[in-house]
């Protein structure tokens, strides 16, 4: 669960990135965050990951009060969040399997569990045949699916996808969002930042529109495929 109460963020440069924002995303929700660049979307993500702190207000993420969270506890928070980057950010010297297994190693999971869990998650994103391939041998869509497997592997309560379709072919974008929807159906909260309005219109659901540091629209709309 993500909850912001009257949150403002002012950067050292004097820029007001977020302005008295209140927002609540419940467990199991799927929400699109849209808005033009510079509107405050990245600031919102950075807040949730505690890369930055709110200048004022309260940020609660998965039961952690971030303004009271000690620096040493940040890794603990981040282990409850899966993150998907626009540019995939896979480690080029590791195979698909290693890239995914890596997350479990970071949290010191038992080796037996790693051997069972990693192939399972890789098969969930449909890449079981590419387990031993390196990222540069994969297409953009496949790389993003590896990234999603990586975000999913430690069974986080929340997955944040930051423009996950920004660097891949439009027709493959739908596949990616379908995949995220499927994960959401299993109970994981998903927060997807995008500025591709076609996608949002197609899938529908909760749309949060940020503009100039304020939420200007936050409603559930029906998607095009709902009508079909």
């Amino acid at each position, binding site marked *: 669960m993500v909850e912001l109460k009257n949150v403002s963020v002012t950067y050292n440069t004097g820029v007001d990135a977020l302005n008295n924002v209140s927002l609540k995303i419940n467990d199991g929700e799927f929400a699109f965050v849209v808005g033009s660049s510079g509107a405050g979307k990245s600031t919102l993500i950075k807040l949730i990951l505690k890369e930055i702190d709110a200048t004022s207000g309260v940020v609660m993420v998965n039961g952690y009060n971030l303004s009271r969270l000690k620096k040493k506890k940040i890794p603990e928070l981040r282990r409850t969040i899966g993150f998907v980057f626009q540019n995939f950010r896979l480690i080029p010297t590791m195979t698909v399997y290693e890239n995914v297994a890596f997350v479990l*190693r970071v949290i010191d999971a038992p*080796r037996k569990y790693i051997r069972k869990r990693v192939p399972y998650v890789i098969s969930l994103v449909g890449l079981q045949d590419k387990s031993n391939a390196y990222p540069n041998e994969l297409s953009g869509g496949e790389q993003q699916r590896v990234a999603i497997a990586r975000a999913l592997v430690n069974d986080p309560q929340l997955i944040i996808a930051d423009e996950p379709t920004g660097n891949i072919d439009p027709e493959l974008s739908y596949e990616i969002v379908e995949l995220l929807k499927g994960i959401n159906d299993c109970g994981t909260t998903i927060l997807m930042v995008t500025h591709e309005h076609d996608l949002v219109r197609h899938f529908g659901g909760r749309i949060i529109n940020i503009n100039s540091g304020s939420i200007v629209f936050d409603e559930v709309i029906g998607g095009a495929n709902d009508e079909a």
Partner: protein
Amino acid sequence: MMKLSGIRYLVNQGVENVWKNRMMAFASFCVLLVSILLVGISVLFYVNINSIIGGIESKNEIVVFLDKDITKEETDDVEAKLKQMDNINSVEFYSREEAYDSMQQSMEEYAEVFKSLGDDNPLIDSFRVSIKDITKISETISLIDELDHIFKIRAPLDFVNILTEMRKIVTVIATAIIIALAIVSMVIISNTTKASVFARRNEISIMKYVGATNAFIRVPFFVEGMITGIIAGGFATIITWLGYDAVVDLLTNEVNILNIIGVGSIISFDSIAWKVTGTYILSGALVGAIGSVISTRKHLNV
């Protein structure tokens, strides 16, 4: 607390990283190698100069001449008192007869003169005294002077002063050079590892995002830096060993200077091989590991 399997994984990662990032590892290796060699050779050079000066010093002794009419008991008494002094290493009695014999031998062309003297030995008994700390020679001389039955003390004071001054200057210069080299090396090493870490900032940032602790991120870099440093230390040992022996060979066989100042003053590599190897490898490991870890710090604040 991290499990043993986790630590093993991290160490393996560090070992693998050396190979995966072999270009950067090679750069770090070269820098470490050159740095260890520069500092190491400077230290060895200094230690040898010091040992040579020490060798020259040890050859210098104070000659204490005794009164001409001294009795056997009085002589023994002086010897005992000399031996009790702190700064005195050894005391050797040199009788007037011995002195006379060696004088005759070294001046054979004057045999006639000696013959005319007959049994009348004009020389006097003396003690050859070697000193522990040559810088305190003046104090020791004045102490000896206070004893009874001392006729005269002869000491190479000027020479000692020159040597003491030389040693001071060599120490200052060597220390300055070694410190400068060490600093330059550290700067270059930290820049090289910084480049190596920068090349992997992506990896580090991903680790941060998936909730890796700082310790977890650092261990592989630590291991990697340490391995690179150990290999560099090993190579530096081999190069130093070969180079050192070659130089010593050259000095002993080709250059006669050493025969004058005494070859014994040059330290043989065999006698310091373990010290050199240990110091090289240890400092390589230490500098490599610390250099890597310091360089990761900046990238950990995500």
